[in-house]
């Protein structure tokens, strides 16, 4: 069971790299949604499957894998922006940063006092790696939509942490977070539209200069 879970978490860590290395918005969104789907499948591997878990998995896959990416794609089309992500931190440096962060996460997880049943699992390092990858995307990308993707990957990391507590809290917290996030993405979609109308570009660097 842990082995299967580790395969998925390993895959999610690989997708983190892909997200850091992708230079086009659609591929970044695709990577993020694929990671969302992987994360949605994970509860099915951890618990005995009853209707509640199945529903949660379905909701996560739909939310992270379809709805949010769909909204982002729509925002991208509506705002009519270029697909090129121009990064503050170049692709290779951000890849290296991400790799360092992941190695650091694995090392740190080793030092944490975990429950014995979590010791062999990659949940904790995977969660921290995703959070840090999300941070790197948030700081390192100029386009608002790429930053949203970074934010969503960060949230994926939080979700992974939440899976540790799946025995005691039946993903209620996660459901709340996901709801917040959907609202957040809605709001960001509107903001993206506004920025586009006001500045003819989605480059957040232009927001630092004041204009009449």
């Amino acid at each position, binding site marked *: 069971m842990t*082995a299967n879970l580790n*395969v998925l978490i*390993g895959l999610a860590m690989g997708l983190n790299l892909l997200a850091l290395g992708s230079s086009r918005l659609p591929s970044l969104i695709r990577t993020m949604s694929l990671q969302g789907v992987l994360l949605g499948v994970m509860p099915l591997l951890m618990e005995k499957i009853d209707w509640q878990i199945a529903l949660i998995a379905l909701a996560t896959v739909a939310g992270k894998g379809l709805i949010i990416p769909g909204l982002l794609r729509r925002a991208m089309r509506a705002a009519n922006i270029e697909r090129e992500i121009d990064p503050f931190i170049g*692709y290779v440096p951000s*890849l*290296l940063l991400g790799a360092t962060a992941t*190695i650091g996460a694995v090392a740190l997880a080793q030092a944490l006092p975990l429950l014995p049943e979590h010791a062999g*699992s*990659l949940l904790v390092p995977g969660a921290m790696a995703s959070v840090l990858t999300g941070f790197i995307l948030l700081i390192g990308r100029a386009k608002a939509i790429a930053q949203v993707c970074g934010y969503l990957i960060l949230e994926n990391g939080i979700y992974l942490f939440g899976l540790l507590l799946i025995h005691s809290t039946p993903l209620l917290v996660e459901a709340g977070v996901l709801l917040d996030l959907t609202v957040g993405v809605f709001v960001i979609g509107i903001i993206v539209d506004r920025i586009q109308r006001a500045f003819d570009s989605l480059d957040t660097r232009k927001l630092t200069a004041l204009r009449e």
Partner: protein
Amino acid sequence: MSTVIDIVFRLAWWLLLAPLLPGIINRIKAWVAGRRGPPVLQLYYDLARLWQKEVVLSTLASPGFVAGPAVGWISLTAAVLLIPLGPLGAGLSFRGDVVLMLYLLALARFCTTWAAMETGSAFEGMGSAREVSYAVLAEAAMIAAMLSLSVHTGSVSLTKMLEPTAGPGAVLLAAGLFTVLLAENCRVPFDDPNTHLELTMIHEAMVLDHSGPPLAVILHGASLKLLLFSVLLTEAVLPMGQLSPFAATGALLAGVLTVTIGVGLVESFLARFAFRRVPLLLTMAVLLCVFALLIAWKGGAA
């Protein structure tokens, strides 16, 4: 005596089957593009034709011009003998043979680039420079991949390392190794084997001045390398040791065929990357292999 016969027999299989792979790749590409394409055995015909042609030697070239391809081919052949073939095991196997394999691959590359620079042509120097600079990252990825297999199995012998599946990191390792395969064999996102624009080619640029049997040897060596990498990739991912001999042989063949078809599809649907984007892809391959290593180290134990 029986070991000698075994090795000869094994080698004959490797050498005979290798030129089939580029043929299959070309067939797939033709099929996707809706053309009829060259016959699957085209490379065999080419090799036979080249073997009969005479060699044109530059007055500048030292004997290294001919020795390079020969040594390269021999080292690739030796590397092939170290690769286990599922239930048959490897022709030669000892503790630490994985290191020898890596070095033999590096030696083969060195010999090709050495022979390329013998004629003093600017294009070949450029091709060699590109080949070697990509190799810096591709070899790092390869070493990381082998290291992760070795950590996962706790062994430094290829026969043992390739027996079980690569564990939780298998998918990452497969993605990394596939990218390395594409880079090492000069397939599409890195180099276009069909291009004859000197400014964009890598492998082709290095072999421009070779003709006749040396060129045949280089081409055959390249196909041998492709087969070696696809066998390695298949065996790293599939749990060879747990299958019955028949199933393992079938799985190996199916795996190699899948990898070949995958290469053909990648070539059909992807364009060659701009040079500045290649290091990014290769860095990603290195990191994928490093992550596989990390996972084998921390997550595979449980």
